[in-house]
């Protein structure tokens, strides 16, 4: 009886389905190419994963709060440029990183200003901010990559643990863990869920929804620059095109990981599995011999798949609601 109950609970758990899918993906590609699960390729997968992984922490929190963020990629890109300029001016790297994080927070606060003070729809506001920042990046660099000469800074992006775990991905994991705990165990985290679930009800229960989303936009900006800094360090260059394209991927892994597009549900553990699943799949396509031009196609398909999944999750929720509510 009890065992049955446990089995049911595990099976219904969204993360269980994701892990199962992940194993299927790993198994299928391993069958196609024996090198898929080699240490070297796992390191590859994780190295490709950290950018979207880091972005997804900030974006994920916003999604749970019911807010969209399309500007993280651009802010990350700008973060990479800022840290590059600072380093090349001779600023020591810890200070350069710190300043860049603050700059990210400032860029994030633009989103907060437009959405909370001017009441512009988050989707549009962040799209606008993204476009402006991405454009400025090109203006500052003339669309040229800028090499970084500070060698001690390179370590951030190139260090590996146990020869498979790159430092950037470790940082992603630490962020996921930290924000997972904040979401599930702290007052602020609970307020994020309640705001995302029903902002007007949360407001009447004494929460300030605008304050919550303001903090989250600033937070997302700062976290985005971490992705930019790590990318710059790994590439040893500041590039006006880096990180940009990962914004959509970060949303995809969030939704894939069980964050509802309408807000109020989801977890960082789900996002973590989403990141692994997404990148294993993308890498697998390359390993299987598909042209790399297919990668955006794969991303798009995964995003749509994630949204369909979200639609069905939401529908089963609505069904439960109807079954219990509308009998009378």
């Amino acid at each position, binding site marked *: 009886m009890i065992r049955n109950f446990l089995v049911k609970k595990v099976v219904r758990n969204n993360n269980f389905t994701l892990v199962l899918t992940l194993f299927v993906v790993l198994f299928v590609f391993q069958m196609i190419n024996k090198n898929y699960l080699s240490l070297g390729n796992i390191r590859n997968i994780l190295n490709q994963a950290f950018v979207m992984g880091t972005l997804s922490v900030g974006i994920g929190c916003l999604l749970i709060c019911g807010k969209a963020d399309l500007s993280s990629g651009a802010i990350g890109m700008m973060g990479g440029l800022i840290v590059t300029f600072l380093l090349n001016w001779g600023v020591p790297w810890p200070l350069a990183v710190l300043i860049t994080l603050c700059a990210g927070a400032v860029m994030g606060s633009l989103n907060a200003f437009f959405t909370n003070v001017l009441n512009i729809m988050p989707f549009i506001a962040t799209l606008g901010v993204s476009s402006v920042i991405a454009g400025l990046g090109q203006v500052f660099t003339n669309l040229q990559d800028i090499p970084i000469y500070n060698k001690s800074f390179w370590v951030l992006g190139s260090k590996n643990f146990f020869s498979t775990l790159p430092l950037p991905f470790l940082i992603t994991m630490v962020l996921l863990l930290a924000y997972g*705990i904040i979401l599930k*165990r*702290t*007052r602020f985290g*609970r*307020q994020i*869920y*309640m705001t995302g*679930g*029903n902002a*007007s*009800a*949360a*407001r*009447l*229960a*004494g*929460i*300030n929804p605008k304050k919550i989303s303001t903090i989250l936009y600033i937070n997302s900006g700062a976290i985005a620059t971490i992705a930019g800094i790590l990318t710059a360090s790994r590439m040893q260059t500041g590039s006006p095109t880096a990180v940009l394209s990962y914004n959509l991927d970060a949303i995809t892994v969030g939704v894939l990981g069980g964050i*509802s597009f309408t807000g*109020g*549900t989801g977890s960082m553990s789900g996002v973590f599995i989403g990141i692994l699943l997404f990148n294993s799949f993308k890498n697998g396509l390359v390993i299987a011999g598909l042209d790399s031009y297919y990668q955006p196609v794969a991303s798009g398909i995964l995003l749509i798949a994630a949204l369909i999944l979200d639609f069905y999750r939401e529908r089963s*929720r609505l*069904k*439960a*609601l*109807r*079954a*219990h*509510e*509308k*009998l*009378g």
Partner: protein
Amino acid sequence: MVEQSLEFCNIVKSFPGVKALKGISFRAEGGRICALMGENGAGKSTLLKILSGDIQPDEGCLKINGEEHHFLSPHQSIKSSVSVIYQERQLVPSLSVMENIFLEDMPVGKLGFINMTELRSKTQEILDTFGLPIAPTDTVGWLSVAYQQMVEIMKAYRRDSNIIAFDEPTAPLTDKEITILFSLIKKLKEKGKVILYVSHRMAEIFQISDDIVVLKDGSLVKTLLTSQTNEGELVKAMVGRDIGDTYANLKRNDKIGDVLLEVNNLVTDYVDNVSFKLHKGEVLGFAGLIGAGRTEVMRAIFGADPIRSGEIRLEGKPVRFKSPSEAVASGIALCPEDRKEQGLVLKRSITDNVSIPVLSKVKKGLFLSRKTENDMAMNAVRKYSIKTPSADKQVMQLSGGNQQKVILGRWTSEKMATKILILDEPTKGIDVGTKAEVYQMVCDFAKQGIGVIFISSELTEVLNVCDNIIVMHNRHITGMLTREEATEELVLQLAMKD
């Protein structure tokens, strides 16, 4: 004229985990109004949804004029001349009255353009038949809720529907509007239509219906002739037991204390010059028609809407809350009228919904204490006998009455230490049995020294539960009565006084 009839034949419908309808059979005749009654969860709405083709029954069928029908979609239902008018109106607010009435069947000229002249004259004809003072070209979104509902009915009439079902049509209407609605329904009745009428309001049922079908837990309990029954018998049939006089058994608070809240000359964008006092342990009723400004007064006090001028004193000290969070921190709680939209976070658990205003008090160091939270929630579940297997259940899976109890549990926890509890239509959409429970809870809160503000549009409830009653009309207070002096007539007079 052919005699119209509608027959439900042994309708069975199950949802995951619930048997909503357990074989319902009855017959409604043309030219008569058949009322469907029952507590929440009795199966009334499910039955209407089957009639409208929105959902399909597991077993059984519908017979219209003796002919068997199985509706697979709303479209088929409409084609068989059935119209179901739901509470949530199915109109396009940005279009005009005539466009809405003829939405799927616009008169088209030779070139495929809509013939506006014909559209207007046809609509005017329909409006004249019922004597409605609106123009065919009025934009629907700008009409009052009542007239929007009329447009919906016109739509059903235009389709020449022979079967028209109403799902709690009067819930959003004022008394005056209800009168208009009823005269309309009676006209439809005279035209020989089959009319089904779902409502929770007892008085209405006796006013308008010819037959009453009572449902309980998905079964048909009784079919009554309205002229041969009374409220007592009907309530007994609905709840399956005699609840006697709900109000006579109330254990009321008799010790009213000092002034808790004093409002002087409050003015906002929605209310004018409102002044009143609330005492400790008092249940202060706010009566009036819908739209009189009662909710708006409370929202302003609570910091949810801006205040233009006026003074608010909480325990003698002047206060002016800039946001609900400040009000909550001072011990004021608001249970909004719209539970689902404004009160609860439906996707989250009972626990989350109960602990939300006092999260800073369930912290242990940096983190929330799950045990404290769970204890709080279980306390509420036990105290108010919320029907749920555990406190982790999503609130959306609870019935309306239990949802209301979750909100009450939130605001009356020890940690919240509520001083003033504002209840806005707390019994709306709640079944008779739970209503009685809520009334007793209100009196219990008063006994604990809480000042309770009780907004309700149900007169009997205000008259019987509250110690003092304030009546509002058209944005300001028109009178204040004690329970002893208040009568239905007096309150109504004040509620309509200009």
